[in-house]
């Protein structure tokens, strides 16, 4: 099996060490030392993740059961949320100050914003620093003024491109490594009526992925993105805008399935599984499942082909999906204890066993990973490129990125206009969210 990933060259042990060291700057203290309650305690956890890491539900059930065995007085009710309902359901709960004790959050802004809005308690107030330092990706995405908002749960290498060598080989094509190669593959395959890339943007989410994996190639750090958010840079500046032109090129070269605008992401990925498209982009934790579904020997896992010489070109992003403790929870210490329990060796190993994806803990024994695809993915995430979508306001993501990706890919808008619209939306956001600049500036420090 052939795996294309720059991160492959990274020595695993060194990477783990690097991650551990990156936590040394975190000032975490005050972890609670209250005695564990003996009375009956009920916790509610709203979570998401089975959608991108199939098997997560089994792990949640196993872990809750194991915790019940350890603490018979604690009952944990779990509710799996839908993708579209995850954010709004929590927003409604937060408005009512009633709902889950433990809540799932995507990383970056999706964890920061609830913290800024006073909806969650910093996890670093309840989990000791010595424990937290092992949680992967918490410093870059979750740290705010010395506190860490949420506890990383599993790592999402974001987002691998999967190429089918059998489909490409049928037309004497090689797996594209550069942008030029990719456009050539698109030209050849589109002439034969085969989409080079399968995607669906009807539900919007894929737009954010594309922004991160194409747009991430021209920035030098996540601070560039935050600078554009607070207004010291612009989304029309070349390092932020050029990716829109690249996206437009994919439309012009007919890279995508023609129905990309009327399909949801998961529906479109099926085209790749069915052999009707040469490549697709999938969630990191789900990549091994996709590869195994069509035969791992026919699949190459790689980062988006390079179009720039930027620092992160040819690298996959890395983000951790997280769990936070709500501000209104009456059992924060117990909730934190459960989170720490979920990072114990047995649970880390079980996560890998159940989902085949990587738990967000540097104590996880990478030696357990034998599958070369998984190994490449895990190594690419330690340390990976910043996942850009997590560093912009969620509203910019939906109103500018999702919407303009749909328009560019339908051929109704140029890349240049899309960049200008993104900037206009951002300028407006700075007016409507009066705390945005202050919060983002504090976050970037």
């Amino acid at each position, binding site marked *: 099996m052939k795996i294309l990933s720059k991160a492959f060259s990274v020595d695993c042990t060194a990477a783990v060490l690097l991650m551990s060291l990156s936590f040394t700057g975190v000032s975490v203290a005050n972890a609670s030392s209250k005695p564990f309650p003996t009375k009956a305690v009920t916790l509610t956890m709203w979570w998401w993740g089975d959608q991108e890491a199939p098997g997560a539900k089994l792990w949640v059930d196993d872990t809750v059961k194991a915790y019940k065995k350890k603490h018979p007085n604690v009952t944990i009710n779990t509710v799996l949320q839908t993708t579209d309902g995850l954010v*709004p359901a929590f927003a409604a709960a937060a408005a009512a100050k009633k709902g889950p004790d433990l809540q799932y959050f995507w990383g970056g802004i999706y964890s920061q914003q609830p913290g800024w809005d006073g909806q969650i308690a910093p996890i670093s107030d309840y989990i000791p620093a010595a424990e937290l330092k092992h949680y992967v990706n918490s410093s870059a995405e979750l740290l705010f003024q010395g506190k860490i908002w949420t506890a990383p749960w599993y790592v999402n290498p974001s987002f691998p491109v999967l190429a089918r060598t059998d489909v490409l080989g049928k037309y004497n094509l090689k797996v594209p490594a550069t942008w030029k190669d990719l456009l050539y593959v698109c030209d050849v395959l589109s002439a034969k009526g085969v989409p080079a890339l399968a995607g669906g943007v009807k539900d919007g989410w894929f737009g954010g992925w594309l922004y991160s994996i194409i747009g991430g190639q021209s920035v030098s750090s996540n601070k560039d993105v935050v600078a554009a958010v607070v207004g010291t840079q612009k989304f029309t500046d070349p390092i932020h805008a050029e990716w829109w032109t690249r996206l437009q090129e994919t439309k012009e070269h007919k890279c995508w399935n023609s*129905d990309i605008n009327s399909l949801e992401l998961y529906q479109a990925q099926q085209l790749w599984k069915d052999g009707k498209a040469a490549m697709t982009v999938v969630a990191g934790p789900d990549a091994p499942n996709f590869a195994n579904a069509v035969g791992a020997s026919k699949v190459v896992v790689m980062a988006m082909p390079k179009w720039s010489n930027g620092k992160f070109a040819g690298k996959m992003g890395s983000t951790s999906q997280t769990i936070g403790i709500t501000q209104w929870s009456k059992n924060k210490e117990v909730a934190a204890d459960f989170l720490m329990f979920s990072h114990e060796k047995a649970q880390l190993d079980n996560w890998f066993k159940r989902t085949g994806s990587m738990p967000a803990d540097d104590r996880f024994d990478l030696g357990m990973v034998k599958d070369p695809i998984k190994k490449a993915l895990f190594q690419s995430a330690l340390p990976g490129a910043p996942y850009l979508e997590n560093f912009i306001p969620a509203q910019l993501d939906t109103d500018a990125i999702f919407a303009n990706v749909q*328009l560019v890919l339908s051929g109704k*808008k140029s890349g240049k206009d899309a960049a200008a619209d993104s900037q206009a939306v951002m300028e407006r956001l700075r*007016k409507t*969210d009066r705390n945005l600049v202050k919060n983002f500036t504090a976050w970037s420090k």
Partner: protein
Amino acid sequence: MINSAPTDYLFTTPRKLWVVIGRLRRSGPFLWVLPAGFCVVLIFGYSILDLVQQSFKYRGAWVGFENFSLVLTDPLFRTAIFHNFLLLFAVPILATLSFICAVLLFETRKGMKFYRSAVFLPYILPIPVIGVVFGQLLQLNGALNSALRALGLNGLALDWLGDPQQALWTMGGIIIWKEVGFGTILILARLISLPLETLEAARIDGAGFFRLHLKVTLPQLRPVILFYIINEAIVMVSWVFNYVYVMTNGQGGPGKATVVSELYIYRSAFQNKSPELAATAALLLLLATLIFIIGFFRIQRNLNKGPFDE
């Protein structure tokens, strides 16, 4: 004996009693609706007051009309309102189709029950079901376009929900398909209750099918059609959220092609966490809907006026 009673008792007490009874009679209807009115005030009154209060605040601090200025200058809000306005074009289509369907059902001798059910069925289907079914059916490579291509009608195989120029009209078409059943049944019910003598007399006088229904039936159905028109106008202004949410995964896409005011409010409140902007937009929407309702009552009052009314 009555005559022996003191005069003040004789004349004042019964008079007072009648005054009280008279007053009670006049206020009787109000007393009957008092419990329901109390509930309405409690539920809606409180919400509306809270809405008004929120629309003048930001994170609890008074900001005057700042939120109104932000919402009214937001291009997305204006786009959303424009889309609601465009959807109003579906109302006359709905009224016309409902009238035609109702007349056809009225004139149908055989299988009326079956046809009536067939027309009404879409109305009772849950919107999420409709959204999912049409979402699949109308994909670029979905069942409808496959059928059109099989018939050689490739030019008609459009990206119904994926093309920003088609999406809103497609949405309008789906709303018409669902809502026409309600209008048909409403008009048909009124049609059945009309005195048959008038229609018979017109027929005897030689009125054909079209003349009969345009000149005799239609004028008699005017109040119910007007009610339906106002009802559907309110639907188009403030009741299309479900369609948009289900068919575009809550995005109002492609781009901003199907964003409507309710979706704007929902996203402001629950996705963008700007409850104040959501409250402001909701207040503006409420005012727009109130204009429709007041307009309806005024028109209805004028229609109900007889020739001898002042």
